[in-house]
């Protein structure tokens, strides 16, 4: 499911812009249709937790994108793992207020700005650990990332 026609123009434009230029450490992995894109992410400084590793983000666009935020999570592939971070669960789900309606999302944000935010979230991290309750959280089945009500208790991210 991609966005309604009025908004498909926006995604095409985003893709065009990103194909022209992207910030260092961010690359398009796949963007074959207007419903799911994957982006590759590297952390550029010498942060020992992420040094030399590349991570993959999956973006899913609902029909109301960009009025509503895309679903964004890390995915595991043969050579991509889920980054260690106190706000990233081991199943790839990211707890970031930017990604939820009613909290930090603004329709002006886009795939690129989300990538930059997540990249800087990793760059600034010094804790090589998972969120509290991770093992329990990843056992709970859920239909969609949107079903999760995170409590944003950490204003530093």
């Amino acid at each position, binding site marked *: 499911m991609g966005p309604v026609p*009025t908004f498909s123009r*926006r995604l095409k434009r985003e893709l065009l812009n990103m194909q022209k230029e992207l910030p260092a450490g961010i690359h398009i992995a796949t963007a074959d249709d207007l419903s799911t894109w994957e982006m590759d992410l590297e952390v550029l400084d010498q942060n020992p937790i992420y040094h030399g590793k590349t991570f993959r983000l999956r973006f899913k666009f609902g029909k109301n994108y960009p*009025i*509503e935020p895309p679903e964004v999570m890390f995915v595991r592939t043969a050579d991509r793992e889920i980054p260690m971070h106190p706000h990233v669960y081991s199943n790839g789900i990211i707890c970031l207020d930017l990604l939820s*309606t009613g909290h930090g999302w*603004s329709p*002006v944000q886009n795939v690129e*700005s989300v990538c930059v935010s997540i990249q800087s979230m990793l760059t600034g991290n010094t804790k090589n650990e998972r969120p509290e309750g991770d093992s329990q959280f990843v056992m709970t089945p859920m239909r969609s990332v949107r079903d999760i009500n995170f409590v944003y208790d950490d204003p530093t991210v």
Partner: protein
Amino acid sequence: MSSDDELMSDQMSDAYGDDDEDSLGELDYEEDGGEYIDEGKEEKPTKRSYEVEFKVYSDDQIRKSQQNQVEEVASILGLPGEQVAILLRHFKWQKDRLIEKYMDSGEEVLEEAGLGPSYDTPPKLETVQGFVCDICCDDEVGLDTYAMRCNHRYCVNCYRQYLESKIKDEGEATRIQCPSEGCSMIVDSKTVDLLVPVEIDKRYKELLNRTYVDDKPNLRWCPAPNCEYAVDCAIRPVQLHTIVPSVNCRCGHNFCFGCGFSEHQPCPCALVKKWLKKCEDDSETANWISANTKECPKCVSTIEKNGGCNHMTCRKCKHEFCWVCMGPWAEHGTSWYNCNRFEEKSGSEARDQQAKSRASLERYLHYYNRYANHDLSAKLDKDLYIKTEKKMTTLQSSSGMSWIEVQYLEAASKVLQQCRQTLKWTYAFAFYLERNNHTYIFEDNQKDLEMAVEHLSELFEKPTDQLSTAKNDMLDKTAYVKSRRMILLDYTAKSLAAEE
């Protein structure tokens, strides 16, 4: 506890007054201890130590009182109504604080509430040359665009979609910000009026109305489904440790103003929450543990015996014991399936140990089972009420009594329901009580109420033809049950107040 706690004084002060008084009454919390037993006569409304003052308002009244406050403040500050509405919402309807602050530093207040300079120009759509919408990337010539005073301009379609999604999907009204990232300008009602279709605008107005009640600490919506009344009660959160503010909505629903939960006197809100949490976590598990397990006499690990002989070896500490007498296995010989040593000293010591560790579990179950029993009975009350209605009809035709003469059945049924509810919460409350003199009196009161309730309940089970002869008995018992409930609640309320 004060010394003037005579429970049976028959003073009937009338502090409760009429429901239709229109002042947003301050809480009048006095102990005027008017307890009496009425023998079948109508009871006068009397405010008791466990009752609080409250008022019920309709949707319209809420809207009007909101409007009145806006107009009042508007005339003081000399600002247009919708700006004052935004200001008041921003100040959570504390109008004195708003007026004071505005007099102090008007510009700052306006800016803070998202009403910066040049607010006065009415909002309008514009077409801008060379415009590209940052949301949909549309760059068509002649595209209608809109921006608030923050100048974050988007095409009218995107703006509308954004507002619709905020209002319809998220139920937002007072906190909708400009769509731009990081811009905290609040979307005002003029903008919403201009941009969204009528039905969304209507929803927006409803939500605004709701926030008034949500923002005012002395107002709360009745939680009953489809009920549109709000209750006004001046209880402050700090008082909830000692007061259980039960209120009755005009729709008939009785609930607690403090937490919105169904009426739970005499148990304070915090304990209700704690108890419900505990029951959710514990009750089923605890029941099962109690029924199916024992603790190892040495390391108190909980053990389930799901078959096999009585020779137990604790997985954890390797202690060997007999499941039946709990004594050490070494003294057992070879009687694997029969234990006839129940009275031996070593066994009984082990059982004592076990008894201690069980006591806390048993204690919880004691209260829980009684709580659950009254809860179940309260649920069956609905059936009872329907049955009562039927009985009332048959009684009318069989005994020639008039409709008014059989109303005592309905009254009795209602009292019964209410008392079950109270009893249920006395058990949750008692679980958290420290043992002292108050507890003994409390338990006596609880026992008396429980007995009275069961007696009244029994009368209801009688066949219809005996009901008419039992009328006086039932009236007496109803009155008695009622008075027992009052005594219990009154005593508890006073003890709680004295503890403060």
